[in-house]
């Protein structure tokens, strides 16, 4: 079989992918050049006090020294109390957060909820997500006083925004044909949720909850600084007293616990797949 010889003259020989964003060549170049010039100017406006940086290096080094020679014993009583408080706060707030976010997440999924409920649940999620944990903690400490209760409420509130949003997105990404098949059997709304949606989102929900547990523990170390109890409060006291060796010990414990949670959660996640 003789194939016709290729004739390159009738077809173009070069091809470039069309730009998606700025289709006009002149404008595209102008926008890129403008962005670059702005970046240079913006960098020049950053003021760095090199003398202050030099002084700070010294203090930073003291912190590193404390980290290298951690002192677990002197303040062990305080550290232990702070840790227990933090872990309690973490676990209770995660459980409370999950319990509240499941219904809100279902309500915020467009394929399950009618419009008014959808909008209300999305509103709650937006409200929870628009404030950073520390800001919520400051407000709640002012309302409920110093201590772990304010911390518990802060973490639970922040968990709701995080978990509901991601759960809702996962529900919306569910396989529609499985939902359709269960609806076709004459199942009620609750049965559709239980039989078609829950099996599909369960692994992700477990994974997200464990991830949130991890985040809540780390956050409990931060919100303690603004008075919401836990290991953060202990850490803050140690730093205020310039006891960098005790602070180093606390940080090492926090890192160790986060590592343990991380490894066990990846194990559990594999197990629920």
């Amino acid at each position, binding site marked *: 079989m003789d194939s016709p010889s290729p004739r390159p003259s009738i077809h173009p020989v070069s091809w470039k992918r069309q730009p998606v964003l700025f289709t006009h060549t002149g404008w595209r170049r102008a926008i890129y050049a403008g962005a670059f010039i702005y970046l240079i100017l913006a960098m020049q406006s950053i003021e760095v006090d090199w003398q202050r940086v030099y002084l700070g290096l010294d203090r930073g080094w003291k912190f590193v020294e404390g980290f290298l020679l951690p002192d677990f014993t002197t303040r062990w009583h305080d550290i232990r109390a702070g840790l227990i408080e933090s872990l309690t706060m973490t676990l209770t707030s995660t459980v409370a957060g999950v319990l509240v976010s499941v219904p809100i997440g279902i309500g915020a999924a467009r394929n399950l909820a009618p419009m008014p409920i959808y909008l209300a649940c999305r509103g709650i999620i937006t409200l929870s997500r628009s404030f950073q944990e520390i800001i919520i903690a400051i407000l709640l400490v002012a309302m409920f006083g110093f201590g772990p209760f304010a911390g518990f409420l802060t973490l639970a509130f922040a968990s709701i925004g995080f978990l509901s949003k991601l759960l809702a997105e996962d529900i919306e990404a569910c396989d529609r044909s499985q939902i359709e098949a269960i609806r*076709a059997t004459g199942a009620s709304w609750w049965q559709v949720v239980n*039989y078609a949606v829950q*099996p599909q989102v369960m692994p992700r929900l477990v994974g997200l909850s464990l991830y949130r547990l991890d985040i809540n523990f780390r956050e409990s170390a931060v919100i303690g600084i603004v008075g919401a109890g836990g290991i953060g409060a202990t850490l803050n006291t140690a730093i205020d007293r310039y006891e960098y060796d005790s602070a180093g010990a606390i940080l090492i414990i926090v890192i160790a616990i986060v590592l343990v949670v991380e490894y066990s959660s990846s194990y559990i996640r594999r197990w629920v797949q």
Partner: protein
Amino acid sequence: MNVLKLDKLSKTYATGDTALNHVSFEVPAGQVLGLIGPSGAGKSTLIRCINRLVEPTGGSITLGGTDLVRLRGTALRRARRRIGMIFQEYALVERLTVMENVLSGRLGYVPVWRSFLRRYSAEDISKAFSLLEQVGLSQQYNKRADALSGGQRQRVGIARALEQDPELLLVDEPTASLDPKTSRQIMRLIGSACRERDLPAIINIHDVMLAQQFTDRIIGLRAGEVVFDGPPGGLTDEVLTRIYGDEDWTQMRGEEAEGDESRTPAVDLADGI
């Protein structure tokens, strides 16, 4: 006696596309009806209108004396449980076990708490076991649905539909993702299940040869209108052209027959016909 009666059924989507235009026909008990037509002819929309997964915009659908088009809420679910449905991609709930998938056929009959706790009645459970035996999966009931092969999954889909004790079976492209031999086995299984129970079925099917072989009557749909209604033997070249448009049908038939013969020893296409 006619079990199902469609009268001037119409569906116009919100986009303005007319999927069905005054479709009327009746299905007597025990009749296996093949619905053929080009892609986009409205076959899928038609069967989904019957169990109201898609809302029809006009006409009426009567199943054993009930007008399905007017039903709402609980009445609609009561009607849906009388209609079994089998899907193209099986639409099993992947993370549930085979048994749970079959029992989900009872969801329209049991209260939410029973289905939630998987506390089905003795009759429901023994019915599920007997159906699994009939479709040849009596040993697999504790396996997860996603551990099965395509043909096995479709068998579970058939068992789920029959578990509903349906008065009508809707079947949407049951063989589209199966190999030729499994396709035939599945079609034969659906056919024998219908004959045993005197159950009418509407089967959407692309494969004209399979439709001719395994159905009692064929309806040809083109652009939402019935252009042929008759026995499988009546599918002449002229009729096929009316349904699908111009094509050299004799050549297709010739090729198919030739292909069948040459492949018979390897794939055993003619198994048990």
